[in-house]
């Protein structure tokens, strides 16, 4: 009995150390944007300066949980905002697991559905847990109390209706995916999901330009970008969320060459694992 009491006390002491340590590292009043390494798919985690948590997409499987575990303090089991850029399996399946592990306060997506079992499961779980749901279009924005600004820059209603006539997402060709601009004072990051050239050009024609961080659309697919878009956005750094040896041969040489010719520093999750960008609103750095 005394032995167990002793072990318990030692563990309590260690737990206290972890609490103090994690409180210092995770609540540092800075913005953290993490491109999670989830293999072939997307999952982006944002921890706001005041410690709110935002998850954009969940990747194809459970790997997103490891990323959340690494970038949130262990006692924080709430994700304030969960966003799905578009209902494809490599972006949504992981969200179902996240819903079982965390308390989600609100869910945001584009107004499209998919016929897959994964999508119906996601919608069922969200409905069961009575999570507040909103469908958004270009122009909608969320202003957080820590002066973080989350802007939806695409797609607009018209684009959504032309590319997906019955509100049902296509599996290939042009389809709509939420494009999200995260702004924190002087720092900005554009997260593109699986969007393609036409949709990005729409966003640019409504005034989108000059970002610090650009997520290369659609895992570096051939049809995500062109030189004109890159010239307007002029990103300081580009990130590609992509799986090792994936069957689509992403990222394509076309995109890699384009980035190289414009001298844009490019980081890839298949080479670096999780990519974390930290900003205090003026300066930013990669961890």
């Amino acid at each position: 009995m005394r032995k167990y009491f002793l072990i318990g006390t030692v563990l309590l002491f260690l737990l206290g150390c972890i609490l103090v340590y994690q409180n210092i590292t995770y609540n540092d009043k800075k913005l953290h944007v993490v491109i999670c390494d989830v293999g072939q798919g997307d999952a982006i985690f944002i921890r706001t300066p005041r410690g709110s948590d935002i998850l954009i997409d969940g990747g194809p499987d459970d790997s997103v949980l490891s990323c959340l575990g690494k970038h949130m303090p262990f006692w924080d089991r709430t994700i304030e905002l969960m966003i799905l850029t578009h209902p494809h399996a490599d972006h949504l399946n992981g969200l179902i697991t996240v819903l079982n592990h965390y308390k989600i306060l609100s869910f945001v997506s584009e107004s499209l559905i998919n016929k897959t079992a994964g999508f119906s499961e996601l919608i069922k779980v969200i409905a069961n847990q009575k999570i507040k749901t909103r469908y958004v279009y270009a122009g909608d924005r969320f202003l957080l109390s820590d002066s973080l600004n989350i802007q939806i820059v695409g797609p607009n209603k018209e684009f959504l209706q032309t590319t997906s006539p019955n509100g049902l997402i296509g599996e290939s060709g042009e389809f709509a995916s939420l494009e999200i601009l995260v702004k924190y004072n002087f720092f900005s990051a554009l997260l593109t999901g699986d969007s393609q050239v036409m949709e990005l050009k729409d966003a640019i024609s409504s005034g989108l330009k000059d970002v610090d961080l650009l997520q290369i659309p659609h895992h570096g697919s051939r049809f995500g970008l062109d030189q004109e878009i890159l010239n307007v956005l002029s990103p300081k750094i580009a990130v590609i969320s992509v799986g090792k040896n994936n069957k689509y041969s992403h990222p394509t040489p076309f995109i890699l060459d384009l980035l190289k010719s414009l001298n844009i520093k490019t980081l890839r999750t298949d080479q670096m694992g999780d990519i974390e960008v930290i900003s205090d609103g003026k300066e930013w750095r990669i961890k």
Partner: protein
Amino acid sequence: MLLILGFRFYFFYNNQPQLTDGQEINFETTILSQPQAVGSRQAFTANYKNQSASRRIRITTSRFPEINYGDFVRISGKISNQNRGVLMYFPKIETVNNSSNILQSSLKSINILRQKLISLFSQTLPSPSSSLLLGIIFGIKEQMPKDFSNNLKTSGVFHVIAASGMNVTLVGGFISAGFAFFLKRQIAIGLSILGIIFYAVLAGLEPSIIRASIMGILVFSAQIMGRQTLAVNGLVLAGFTMLYIDPTLLSDVGFQLSFVATAGILYIKPLFGKQEGIVSEVSTTIAAQIATLPILLANFGVYSIYSILVNGLVLWTVPILMMIGGIGAILGLILAPLGQLLIYLCYPLLLYFEMIVNFFGKIGGVISIQALSWEFIAGYYCLLISALIFSKRK
């Protein structure tokens, strides 16, 4: 006994319903073991019954909707017959609701408890800590992220998340010690046997837990009758019963590992003499690994020499985690915050465990083999058995 088993095998394989490649079948069955989720898929084994004979079919399907044990399902699809058995890929699966069957409804209610435990743990700690703890205490693996479970495999400690002997001993010992205060000893032991069965079902009825439960129940029933048992007899009887009921288990990796490792601990470990504490754990590891090396190599292709070191570094945390986490689980079902407090207490040890596993998992395997010939495996075991007999004689 071998003779009876021989006959059983003969009749079993002669009476199997013949299934040919590409054949369309349609059948109803109850899922009897927990499907394993791997990435975006889940896999399970279903019993296909045709008149008197039955055959196990390995089914792979998409991850959602999730199937749980105790579910009664109607499966229809195409057979794909390959050298590794009868398989079905992405058949149509419908869950049929009929809880008239007692077996099925009790499985269902245990499954509800199981889901409650999973959500208690996974809503208290981040992953993979929560899934590691669930694995250690209950052998529940379906929440384990793929990268972490790969690291567990390469660093050679995957066995800690399979419910087995140590869990059964703790469950049985805990119940009999707890009730021995105010009940007759026999009744207390009877209750521990019930507890072990309940635990085995909760843990998902994998071969390792069934083997350990049969052995554990034998030990406890021998205590009621006031007799001594030999662990070896228990192991043989457990193997006999399981193979008699399901001959296909012989080719199941989990079954092979569990039996050969236990035999290794029973026969090889005593040769190292008496040890205590961490030395004893290391020698248990070495004994089990000597016995299972060919199986590990044949099935996983890699073996890490560091695994002995890793086992030595982490195994001491397992009984502590089982105790604190187990009590936390029971309390958590009654009053969630109280249980969570104890689960938090496990967190420092879990972090330590993960650090070691991830570090050695990245270094990877040391021996890696593409294909292992059966001659090598046979030769290895001939040498091992003869060496054991020699050393016994001395």
